[in-house]
């Protein structure tokens, strides 16, 4: 499961007003709630 730049479920994307740089930070992705717990191969090569 991604560990950063991601919000779970259908939480609203945070406003980007706080981004200080000229180029705004990308909005975090909104993860859809999985229907199945398996189905991913992880970076260590383990598939479950």
């Amino acid at each position, binding site marked *: 499961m991604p560990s950063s730049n991601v919000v779970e479920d259908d939480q609203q994307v945070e406003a980007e007003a706080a981004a200080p740089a000229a180029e705004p930070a990308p909005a975090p992705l909104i993860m859809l709630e*999985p*229907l199945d717990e398996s189905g991913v191969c992880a970076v260590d090569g*383990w598939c479950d």
Partner: protein
Amino acid sequence: MSASVFGRAAEPILIDVWSDVVCPFCYLGNAILKEAIEQHPHGSSVQVRYHSFQLNPGFPVGEAVLADDYLAQQYGMPKAQIEASHAQLSARGAQSGLDYQFPKSMMINTLDAHRMIHLAKAHDQEPAMVDRLFRAEFTDGLNLADHGVLADLAADLGLDRAEALKALETKAYEQDIRADLSRARELGISGVPFFVFDNKRAVSGAQPVELFRQALDVTWQDRAASPA
């Protein structure tokens, strides 16, 4: 005024997919995503873009071993457990028209296979190459570490075999592959397949077709609700 005719809704829904050639769930997830797109009323307005991901970047380049032997050695998995896992995935794959032949699948370093996907992308053959590589890995049991095999697959799709060999020998598309991997890190992707819809919503894993349909529905609704 119809949002399906003007504004953002007139542009294709972009689906960015991170996957690896030796990832069995990526083969399945790709097939399920295609089912969902075919079933969606606006499926013709969808563009899928593939991005490189490496599950096993430390595997020696050019070498190949049977994937089952690798799993047994790397994780100490008993043969019966491996076979049970394969049987489950084979059954799911069969429902999507896939023919997994796990005993023939090879573990390789997939960097060169990803070069072929980027080569195919340059010739508008990216989805076909992704499909062909998955089938070569999981059904045909081909050695995708072998440059000759990869060049043959490129030629099967109508690409120039000599150009494919040159791309492999010169380590072409390295920058594109690194950019894909870097973007995956930025997004926090730690497993594949991983699907991003219009840079906003994401699905992790080879989920049931219902979830992909939901992702397409809500993405389409996002567009209809957003200003042109």
